[in-house]
């Protein structure tokens, strides 16, 4: 069983919602990524989404764009991201790590080389933002065979046939983008989320994480009432940005705890 699947099994058994933080690897510096990953776990993360920086992050808002620029300026690369995951696995063998990024750095490395290296490093899932299912059949199969879950996005605008395509190609969980826009926007429509998630979960037969636009404990709690997990990215990067390198680890831990508490206060209210 994959680390991601057993993570969601345990969450379900305990009646808890998953908390999936996102940080960009290498932001603000490659050296700080490993301590930040441990801090995320210490603050209550169930799964870590680790952003692979790209020069042209088309689906990201200004916050994650800035994080990518800082990471690249600090010399981060896909190879170094994999090395960081391997280092994380030295002490944490339980927390699933999902790489999230864009297709080009992976294709530049070579798809097969990447899948092998990611598997060896201890990566559990890969979400390639600009790889919709129809463009990455071979990649998704390759990843699955190496024990890596290919994770796909669904959007408020996705039609049912599309949801079925994503269900067929993906494994691990579905990342539901809770708004029309880029990461970090502030236009989350809670009613829409509450309406769509049960249908999507039913149709895909996988846990559903919801992200894009979750900025505080209250929203996390509302989303957590209907989703299997909440994903928080831009807001955490703002914490790192505002704290500066010295205080980043402490600030991220504190912020994560506030979200964790909000999610845990939901109890087992969702059937």
């Amino acid at each position, binding site marked *: 069983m994959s680390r991601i699947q057993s993570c969601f099994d345990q969450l379900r058994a305990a009646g808890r919602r998953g908390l999936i933080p996102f940080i960009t690897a290498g932001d603000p510096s490659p050296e700080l990524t490993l301590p930040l990953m441990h801090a995320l776990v210490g603050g209550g993360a169930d799964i870590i989404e680790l952003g692979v920086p*790209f*020069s*042209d*992050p*088309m*689906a990201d*808002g*200004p916050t994650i*764009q800035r994080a990518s*620029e800082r990471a*690249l300026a600090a010399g981060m*690369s*896909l*190879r170094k991201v994999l090395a960081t995951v391997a280092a994380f696995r030295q002490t944490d063998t339980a927390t699933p790590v999902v790489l999230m990024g*864009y*297709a*080009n*750095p*992976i*294709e*530049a*490395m070579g798809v097969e080389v990447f899948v092998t290296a990611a598997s060896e490093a201890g990566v559990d899932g890969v979400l390639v*933002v*600009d*790889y*919709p299912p*129809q*463009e990455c059949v071979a990649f998704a199969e390759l990843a699955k065979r190496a024990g890596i879950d290919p994770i*796909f*996005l*669904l*959007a408020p*605008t*996705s*039609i049912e046939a*599309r949801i079925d395509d*994503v269900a067929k190609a993906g494994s691990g969980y579905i990342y539901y*983008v809770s708004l*029309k*826009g*880029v990461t970090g*926007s502030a*236009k989350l429509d809670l009613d829409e989320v509450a309406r769509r998630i049960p249908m999507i979960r039913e149709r895909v037969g996988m846990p559903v994480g919801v992200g894009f636009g979750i900025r505080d404990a209250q929203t996390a709690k509302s989303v957590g009432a209907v989703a299997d997990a909440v994903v928080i990215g831009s807001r955490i990067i703002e914490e790192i940005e505002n704290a500066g390198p010295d205080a980043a680890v402490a600030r991220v831990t504190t912020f994560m705890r506030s979200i964790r508490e909000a999610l845990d206060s939901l109890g087992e209210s969702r059937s």
Partner: protein
Amino acid sequence: MQMADTPYQMPDAQGHFGPYGGVFVAETLIPALDSLREAYAACLQDPAFLAEYHYELKHFVGRPSPIYHAQRWSKLLGGAQIYLKREDLNHTGAHKVNNCIGQALLARHMGKPRVIAETGAGQHGVATATVAARYGLECVVYMGSEDIRRQAANVYRMKLLGATVVPVESGSRTLKDALNEAMRDWVTNIHNTFYIIGTVAGPHPYPQMVRDFQAVIGEECLTQMPEMVGRQPDAVIACVGGGSNAMGIFYPYIPHSDVRLIGVEAAGEGIDSGHHAASLTAGRPGVLHGNRTYLLQNEDGQIIETHSISAGLDYPGVGPEHAWLKDCGRAEYVGIADGEALQAFHDLCRFEGIIPALESSHALAYAAKLAPTLGKDKILLVNLSGRGDKDMHTVAEKSGIQF
């Protein structure tokens, strides 16, 4: 060449040109692209839509654009005869408007009251702002702040036409970053917004759609050349940044296998200098801006900053159909450096009384190189894709002159 037997039919239903093209975008854009594809396919079958498109090209743009025999320049070069397809005479001064008319009509057909565009040199932004004013659409143009600095006159033109010009400060602050930002706008405002992409790149159906709207250039040439000289040219030459003017003139010539198709990329300060924008000559395949194509990238797959004296060629990718035409050998791609383009710019001004765009000057420069190697009976057809008024500032600066 295998194409002689089988008719050229690209792209396939999923937008692939061999291994290139496709739909490499986040899920949030997929439904918008699906409905665009459907609307475009329907309009292509709609005689009323096509009639309106052609009416606008004739009465608003001023088509057909003439072909001009550059006799003095040809004689000075001492070889092949150079003919110019005068896209610089179009309303707004470049080929870009052909595509903007098509897409703006499509936006209206789809009930979208707002159009957005990215622009590098400003030509596509001006063309979009122009048609938006013509059809009463709200218009927002994204432009890198570095390009805004280089193309101040075009920025003012867009504003005069009622468009909002949004400076883009991310990345290299040029065309590619403007494209990223326009995509972000589109994904956020899909319900009321149509994204008018200016070149034959981006996710399917854009490369096909922009090519189809620009193919009027080559279609006219197919008729005009036999009328003027009794036959088709020996070679068709066009500059390639994203590649829309080149696809527009190449596409109708693809089945004419005895006509050479030559795309000219910006070699900037020279391919070896690393400061250039020659994706097909010096790049390798990858994924950017919704399609797979040749890209200028570092070994880690990050897109690198490009350089060209002409903002319109300053782009690290290229339309996927050019990538395919290169691989299958139907078209050849060469590079022309900044200095060579400038020389051709000055020559055309002095010997023919035509001020060409710096983009088009790259195609002219290659024609000037090729002509002397060929006999006087050979014919080169160059797509003069735009006029050079917008480049006065850049050229003057290079000559050490300040206004």
